[in-house]
């Protein structure tokens, strides 16, 4: 055994030992990373969304905008009240509806509806929206987030389950121009 060739029995065993531990670490990393990524890679498709009832149509009179709440479809025992999500339901003309997320399209604060002036106002950074959800003024670059809805057996159902944010795919653009409506 000559030390000059750089490969000794002890050195070789140590390298094998390090290699062995690296392999074990890699094997362990797979379940750990998968566990950490579980909020992103969900087994159930498609995503977190499902159809939820907001109640009977009678609660939403024609021409008015009312606050509705639903229990988030993905909720655990520790969630408490945080899984009760509000949204704004606008009954346009008795036939057509619009359901807006509570979250301002700027940074997610809860917008409030003022029927007298027909505006949604945000208490945080001063965003304002018209009754149809389109942007009126302030920092938001777009209109309010809007849920898909359907009417089934006299109930209003929306497709929800995920907090809408500016960059999230569930945030549907409803007013691309961002300007005020024509002939306002």
């Amino acid at each position, binding site marked *: 055994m000559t030390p000059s060739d750089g490969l000794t029995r002890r050195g070789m065993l140590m390298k094998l030992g390090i290699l062995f531990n690296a392999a074990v670490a890699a094997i362990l990393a797979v379940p750990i990373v998968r566990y950490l*990524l579980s*909020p*992103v890679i969900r087994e159930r498709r498609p*995503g*977190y969304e499902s159809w939820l009832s907001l109640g009977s149509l009678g609660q939403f009179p024609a021409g008015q905008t009312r*606050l509705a*709440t639903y229990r*988030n479809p*993905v*909720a*655990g*025992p*520790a*969630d*408490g*009240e*945080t*899984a*009760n*999500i*509000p949204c704004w339901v606008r009954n346009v003309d008795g036939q057509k509806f619009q359901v807006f997320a*509570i*979250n301002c399209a*700027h*940074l*997610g*604060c*809860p917008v*409030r509806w*003022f029927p*007298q*002036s*027909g*505006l949604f*106002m*945000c*208490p*945080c*950074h*001063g965003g304002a929206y*018209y*009754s149809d959800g389109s942007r*009126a*003024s*302030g*920092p*938001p*670059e777009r209109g309010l987030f809007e849920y898909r809805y359907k009417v089934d057996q006299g109930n209003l159902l929306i497709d929800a*389950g*995920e*907090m809408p*944010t*500016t*960059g*999230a*795919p569930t945030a549907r653009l409803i007013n691309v121009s961002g300007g*005020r*409506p024509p*002939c*306002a």
Partner: protein
Amino acid sequence: MRLIKNVGDWLEQRLQLAAPIRETMEHPVPRRTASWAYVFGSAALTVFILQLVTGILLALLYVPSAGEAWNSLQLLNHQVSLGWFIRALHGWGSNFMIAIVLIHMVQVFLFGAYKFPRELTWIVGVLLLLLTLGMAFTGQVLRFDQDAYWGLGIGASIASRVPVLGPWIVKLLLGGPIIAGATLSRFFAFHVFVIPGSLIAFVALHLLLVLKLGINEWPMPGRLVRRATYMKEYHELTHADGLPFVPGAVAKDLFFSGFILLAIAACAAYFGPFGPSGQPDPTIIQTVPRPDYFFLWLYAVLSLLPPSMETPALLIGPVIALIVLLALPFFSGEGEKSWKRRPIAVLTILLVAVAMGTFTHLAGYAPWSPVMDAWSGEPIPTRYLKGRTALERQGALVFQAKQCHNCHALGGAGGERGPELDGVAVHLTQDQLIRQVIQGGGNMPAYGNNLNPAQTTALVAFLETLYPAGQEPARDASRP
């Protein structure tokens, strides 16, 4: 006495720590560093220890569950003996910690302490600043109230703007699709395990570097740092004209640390704990979320930036700031240390301080936010109603009923989102008022769809009466 000595000897035989501890305590420091300017690092360490102790005390009763956290804080505030005081110590300790860390950083920057050979000390310090801010934000989340809930929403909205990865980052941040139990649990894990663990490790490294490289000497104008000669010069400074850290320089550190602890306790006893504000129930939308003190400047920036600049500023700004801070010792590692000959360094500090101070001050009263209840809670001053016609008074009613007051102040009350209207008739003619109300513009929504002609006529008639005594209302020069 003999027993204590025997136990001490028994331990020393095994640990052999007496000599290194004595050497550390008595290591020589430059004479002029025994100064009140050098007490902020040790004060930050003291407050950190206070935070560890009070944090553990709070964890004895705090329940990190979205359904129970708020109730457990109420229990601490109102039912547990002196629970409110421990919460107040932890909350005020957090504010003091951030203030002291920032002052320490400014002092180190102005004294050129980040230059050779203390570059790594500075870099570890920058990481410590980030971790401290991380503790502040996660701590605000653990006070699981309305501000925490909507603050998380703002954090998620910012994260969602990251190109491509945004939606995934949001779900990882929240631990699921919405702000709920998993969100609080992971912020608890970060606030209690991950960040404090990292802080302890980096504080140890920071202190080790201070001991290995020695405390920065008092900068003298004209005494330049050169890599080739600095170590020799510093050795002379400490050994020819130095004094031992203990007891030579430590006295001021001790007094200042004690004073800071006393100040925190006084604030805690006098002002009490922070919150919690309302329950974290998202269906309670009558809320005006505000960030904690040290993030108010960010709140102002987010309100005042032009919309198109917001996303780049949010995503690129912090990265640039971090790169500048980390790279500082490498492009300015030698040369002049004294602030007296570094005008740009002094101006930078002044500029940042004035900017942060201004933004914080602005965020204190948030002129950009509508006052959500001004239309029903702030009456129109009687002087604007006395002696007016029926139409003008009807217009004042429209002004209130259509929430104009939420964004426009009258008589010093109401929102400041739009201009105050006490003298609006001096600036705008009747036609201009009608156009502005109906079409909006400038940052104002259009009211054309929400006012009938009679309401518009009344509102404009009221607005035309709003001009100060001694000034003429605006007239359309094209009309007789």
